[in-house]
């Protein structure tokens, strides 16, 4: 199987999961007590008004019919209309999704860039001081709530030291005209990085810690592989062994963990966006829930699911790329 066909095959496999996500959110949204119409029109609306609204959003029809309608809608790219904002859900998401993606990607970049060296050093210098430090860092990393890290960072770096802003985010591709205090593209980028720094660390710490742990144990295993012994027996320098022979094999479990970490990180984004008052997908879904805006709830949850599934497929393909056994295996 070629890599391309393998990828296509993975995408096909993901479809049932997406339908499942819609089913779950549809069911949950349906369960939400309270009448959205009431929220829109106040406690004593006129009967005609209610009926008009219900007809507009299809609320007068039975649940299974609405589910089918919704499903076909999703298939054609229509996620419905937000009751509260009275705007298409998709439009709202397109507005907010990039913010969350920027946050997520930078957090993962931070996590991977710090975790891999930490894990490798830890494995190579097992039971030496460097290893202990790295293990304590990762232990604390997996044990600390991300939002608390955010709060502490804000107190220290924003309030006391004043190095970074405490709230908000600037998108790197924003129009300089819309960004206060920025006249040039470079200024915008600088501000974006400036704003991004604290939330990135708050969100990325957990991932960093998890990846360090798995990188360490995976490297330890790999360094004991028979092929490493063989390389030593053929006089390959220790640095090459670590960098090449042991390293690539050791990345396979790491990739899996990165893929699984996406779900946690997306959830963490909700908290990070709250702490840093960033208007991303996380805030959107909290607002939607508070307003019982169930079209929006379904839409955003679905997008979270899509983001996760896409991420997992990418990691799967990366795995297949690194491990020849996956794609050539069934020949």
């Amino acid at each position, binding site marked *: 199987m070629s890599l391309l066909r393998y990828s296509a095959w993975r995408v096909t496999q993901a479809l049932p999961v997406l339908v499942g996500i819609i089913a779950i959110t549809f069911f949950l949204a349906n369960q*939400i007590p309270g009448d959205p119409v009431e929220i829109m029109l106040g406690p004593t609306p006129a009967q005609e008004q209610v009926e008009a609204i219900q007809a507009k959003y299809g609320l007068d029809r039975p649940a299974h019919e609405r589910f089918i309608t919704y499903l076909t809608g999703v298939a054609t790219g229509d996620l419905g209309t937000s009751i509260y904002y009275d705007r298409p859900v998709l439009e709202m998401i397109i507005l907010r999704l990039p913010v969350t993606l920027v946050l997520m990607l930078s957090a993962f970049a931070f996590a991977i860039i710090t975790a891999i060296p930490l894990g490798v050093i830890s494995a190579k210098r097992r039971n030496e001081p460097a290893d202990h430090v790295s293990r304590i860092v990762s*232990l604390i990393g997996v*044990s600390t709530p991300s939002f608390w890290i955010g709060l502490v960072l804000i107190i220290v770096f924003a309030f006391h030291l004043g190095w970074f802003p405490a709230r908000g985010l600037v998108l790197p591709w924003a129009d300089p005209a819309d960004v206060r205090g920025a006249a040039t593209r470079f200024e915008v980028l600088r501000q974006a990085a400036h704003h991004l720094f604290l939330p990135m660390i708050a969100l990325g710490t957990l991932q960093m810690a998890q990846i360090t742990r798995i990188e360490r144990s995976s490297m330890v295993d790999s360094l004991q592989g028979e092929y490493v012994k063989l390389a030593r027996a053929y006089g390959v320098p220790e640095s090459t062994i670590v960098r090449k022979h042991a390293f690539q094999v050791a990345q396979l479990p790491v990739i899996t963990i990165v893929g699984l970490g996406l779900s946690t990180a997306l959830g963490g984004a909700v908290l990070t966006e709250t702490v840093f008052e960033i208007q991303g997908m996380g805030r959107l879904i909290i607002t939607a829930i508070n307003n019982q805006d169930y079209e929006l709830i379904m839409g955003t949850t679905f997008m979270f699911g899509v983001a996760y599934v896409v991420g997992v497929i990418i990691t799967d393909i990366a795995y297949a790329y690194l491990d020849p056994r996956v794609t050539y295996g069934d020949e």
Partner: protein
Amino acid sequence: MALGNTDTDDVPAEGADGPDEGAGEVEARVGMRYTLAQVKRDTTARIGIYIVGFITAVALFASIDYYILDYAIAEAILYDPESDPDTVRRLLPPFGMENQFGQGVLEHPLGTDHRGRDIFTRLLYGTRVAMTVGFMATTIGLVGGTLIGAVSGYYGGWIDDVLQRATETVYAIPFLVLVIAFMTAFGRDLRFAMIGVGITAIPVFNRLIRSRVVSIREEDYIEAARAAGVKDRNIILRHIIPNSFAPVLVQATLQVGVSILIVAGLSFLGFGAQPPTPSWGQMLSVSRGYMLPAPTFSVWPGLAILITVVGFNILGDGLQDALDPRINN
């Protein structure tokens, strides 16, 4: 540092070669007694036990004080302006407290919150919520995940496929979003938080149990039991479950920590324990409004969460080392 000696997982079976390598070494150490002895020998695991034991004791104390004594002890020790002076007075004599009205024996060691309540007391009470939710959610995840994983792994085929797609779907929705949606649908109270977090733990245990079952099912001793004519039910009860126990125990320990983190996050967003029930996440949520004037207000509940979760994590790591069949002295 204590982390030092946890790392015995990879001493290779040297000194032996040939087909019968290291007979009697791999899988050599079994049985509850051995496990406990091993855990006790492991410094890291011991620290984990102390932390978890301490937090559990505090949680028990807080529960007794809450349900049976109606806050009496806490208030006797630490003054709380919102408490009812009568209760305090009623309970004072047996405890031999000198103070007559309201004032606790200790000043506020960690200060008071925005409403003048003692932070230390509220932290102590927070353990109750954290531990209850942690244990209950883990139990729900464990039971649900074990059932699904065992059925899935043992029967295989389309049952496996359907169940695995379903749990994958649950996993695909970020934990926090799923629990929030769940609580919005069913009610913003602690019970639903527990159930919600429990549901998110199901895929984790399912994945673990299923892979265990699938690999144990291939072991020769399972086939030997089948060849001997042992009933399926007995094979599951007597061979598969006992042999899956170790990694599940480790995961469950870690999962308590994870659940505590998730519930703290929920409370922070206003979906966890509702006021006035003290919970760490909710304290953090409130503290956001006072970050400038009272930064320490944010620090204490966070540290409480950190220490508790660290406790569970190192206990889990220690157990893993102790139960690892690869350990070979």
